[in-house]
């Protein structure tokens, strides 16, 4: 029997310990106490919500068929929002549903959060490095910046930025153009040049992908050859040249792809783009477009005459086709007058009523419009239709990417990228405030790397920027990322202070929806889910990055 004793650690005399001193028993008791505590707190929350719901009344849960059910809690979101939103990244109209209104808010929040995180990181890193600069003035300025921004409330900074700085800027007619660059700073915010991606950009994109693959293949082939022959070839140069050549071909091919169409009345007899020029010349009775300016100076013609003769065109507001057509007209010096509409059918009716002589859009759309127009024309009495008869369609060359430069037309900015004063205020506020905290995190991270690393890097002859980039920052990142993550989360959540500067973010529009619909519980629930999912995605990405970084250690 003695041989059947199972192998294992010898049991210690547990009989001698009373249970209130036995660590294992105490552990179990603590667990039980925690679970009971948790159930009590959670139960209180749930009963509180249920009480509030019942005191708000069952009208909160009206279904479309008139019945009551908790399942219909969000049915009211289908109704018309009936409020206007000042900034809409997607099409929105007050007759759209609350869902769409909150969707606009969500996009606005995401926009300001993503841009805020990117720029706060850049600025914060620079300030953090500046804090460590041996230059007394640079490090002092960085220190003052950090102290000022970290030790005052963000709301105060936002209100100061919005009311004192941005609304204090000049009116649109005297907008500031820094250094004569094609950008404007005014009370309306900041207007920057932007790139417009035309429909044919899809073709160029295909060529870009092809170019990348091509360059990679060339890189590998040349690398093999280097190994075989033992001679160094300029692999990088060749790969870049081949990439540029492919993109160049892509640009030409996609530019010749003519899918920009102009609809003109048959009566104008326009066959090609140059005919527009001829028409304006005939109206003004001059030989050359260049003469217009000099004739104006000499008083041979008046500005009113030029305005009268200018080509009247209809476009969709901020559509690629607008940038495309107007920039061609500007290049040809043809005077024109734009009528912008927000919807396709408005342009069509303006065109039929004779408000404009040319209407521009993608070929497919224009072709469909023309067919529709033929029907309208056939169905309406002759007198109502000015631009009668079959319309002519004109194909234009379209570049895949066009630079859109902001201009002042009347009392509005046209073209380019518009940053409203509200957006600028919240974005700038978030960047400046978060960057101050990031700067301290970056400084601490850099200082956490031992001095020996700097000495080794210097002794090996690495330059100061190489030392920072290749040796210090990769090690500092491990210390930087965890606190950096909470700064990013702070930024995302602080973006809800947009309410203070009337920027239509998710929380702002959520508030409006609560006031209008009276459904506070549902909206608060949505707001919580929204910010929670933003926070979880941000920390998810950073945790993944951190894990990848940690793995490199060993």
């Amino acid at each position, binding site marked *: 029997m003695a041989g059947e004793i199972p192998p294992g650690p010898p049991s210690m005399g547990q009989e001698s310990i009373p249970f209130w001193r036995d660590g294992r028993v105490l552990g179990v008791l603590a667990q039980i106490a925690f679970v009971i505590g948790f159930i009590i707190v959670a139960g209180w929350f749930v009963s509180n919500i249920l009480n509030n719901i019942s005191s708000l009344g069952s009208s909160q849960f009206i279904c479309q068929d008139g019945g009551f059910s908790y399942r219909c809690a969000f049915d009211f979101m289908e109704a018309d929002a009936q409020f206007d939103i000042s900034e809409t990244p997607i099409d929105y109209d007050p007759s759209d549903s609350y869902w769409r209104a909150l969707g606009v808010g969500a996009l606005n929040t995401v926009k300001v959060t993503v841009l805020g995180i990117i720029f706060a990181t850049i600025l914060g890193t620079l300030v953090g490095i500046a804090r460590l600069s041996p230059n007394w003035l640079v490090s002092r300025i960085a220190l003052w910046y950090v102290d000022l921004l970290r030790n005052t409330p963000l709301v105060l900074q936002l209100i100061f930025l919005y009311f004192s700085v941005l609304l204090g800027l000049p009116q649109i007619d005297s907008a500031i153009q820094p250094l004569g660059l094609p950008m404007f700073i005014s009370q309306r915010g900041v207007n920057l040049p932007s790139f417009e991606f035309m429909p044919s950009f899809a073709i160029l994109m295909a060529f870009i992908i092809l170019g990348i693959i091509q360059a990679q293949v060339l890189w590998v082939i040349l690398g093999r050859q*280097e*190994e075989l022959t033992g001679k*160094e070839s300029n692999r990088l140069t060749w790969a870049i040249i081949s990439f540029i050549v492919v993109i160049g071909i892509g640009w030409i091919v996609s530019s010749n792809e003519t899918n920009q169409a102009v609809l003109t009345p048959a009566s104008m007899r326009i066959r090609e783009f140059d005919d527009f020029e001829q028409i304006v010349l005939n109206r003004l009775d001059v030989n050359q477009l260049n003469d217009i300016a000099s004739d104006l100076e000499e008083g041979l013609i008046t500005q009113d005459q030029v305005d009268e003769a200018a080509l009247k065109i209809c476009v969709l507001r901020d559509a690629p086709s607008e940038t495309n057509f107007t920039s061609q007209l500007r290049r040809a010096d043809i005077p024109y007058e734009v009528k912008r509409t927000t919807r396709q059918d408005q342009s069509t009716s303006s065109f039929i009523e004779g408000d404009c002589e040319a209407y521009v859009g993608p070929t497919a759309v224009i072709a469909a419009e023309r067919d529709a127009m033929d029907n309208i024309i056939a169905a309406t009495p002759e007198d109502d239709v000015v631009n009668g008869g079959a319309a002519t369609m004109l194909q234009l060359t379209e570049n895949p990417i066009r630079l859109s430069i902001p201009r002042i037309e009347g009392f509005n900015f046209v073209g380019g990228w518009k940053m409203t004063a509200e957006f600028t205020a919240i974005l700038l506020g978030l960047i400046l405030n978060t960057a101050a905290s990031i700067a301290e995190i970056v400084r601490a991270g850099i200082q956490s790397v*031992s001095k*020996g*690393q700097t*000495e*080794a*890097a*210097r*002794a*090996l*002859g*690495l*330059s100061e920027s*190489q030392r920072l980039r*290749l*040796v210090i920052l*990769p*090690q500092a990142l*491990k210390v930087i990322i965890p606190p950096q993550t909470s700064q990013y989360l702070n930024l995302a959540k602080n973006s809800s202070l947009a309410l203070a500067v009337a920027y239509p973010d998710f929380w702002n529009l959520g508030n409006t929806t609560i006031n209008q619909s009276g459904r506070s519980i549902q909206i608060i629930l949505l707001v919580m889910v929204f910010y929670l999912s933003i926070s979880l995605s941000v920390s998810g990405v950073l945790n993944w990055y951190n894990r990848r970084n940690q793995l*490199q*250690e*060993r």
Partner: protein
Amino acid sequence: MAEAKTLKTTGDNVIVCNEVQKWYGNYHALRGVSMSVRSGEVIVILGPSGSGKSTFIRTLNRLEEHQGGDIIVDGITLSHDVRNIAEIRREVGMVFQQFNLFPHLTVLENITLAPIHVRKWSRERAEEVAMKWLTRVGIPEQADKYPGQLSGGQQQRVAIARTLTMEPKILLFDEPTSALDPEMIKEVLDVMRDLANSGYTILAVTHEMGFARTVADRIIFMDAGQIVEENTPDNFFHNPKEERTKKFLNQILNH
């Protein structure tokens, strides 16, 4: 095995120091150090702690700035001219007491970092030279490990390979064995002895008397920021000139 490259000389010497002064605030760390080193010479610097010997060799590649006197290395006068500093650092390699390997890079990446970014070698060439030196210090199989996975002696040998891959003309050793366990000191000293026999110009601060006695061409003894005695190993250990040297030798040899 003469692999060391030829050096530009000033007179007969590749390093010339003249009345070098250094202060840390009010503390006078180097009080007029003058010495010179000929090409291929192996010099061991001895002295009690706080004597300024580490500070002195760290002024030679400007890890410490000297505030008076002249230092001429490889024909270049050290000054605030950053281009001169960069040029000298390319030709002067240094091995530290605490190894100072980069913990986020593998052994091979540690070694090839500077050749690729400073010497502008191709990765292939850098890796080839790196592997040659790793083999020479006896640990080619550790190339893909991270420094944290190696023993102290192995780390110090990687640090030596990292320095040598840059193909320096002069090697500075700053107490290379002081942070090592006793049984690992030998493996590092063997590598250093091998290098000394290959014709490198070497300046080493160390407490290894055996190494000083057998390898050094000349011993420099420093105390209180000054050179007290310069002598051949034989004379230094058996027939020292200065009273201070005798006291020092008594303390370290008879404990």
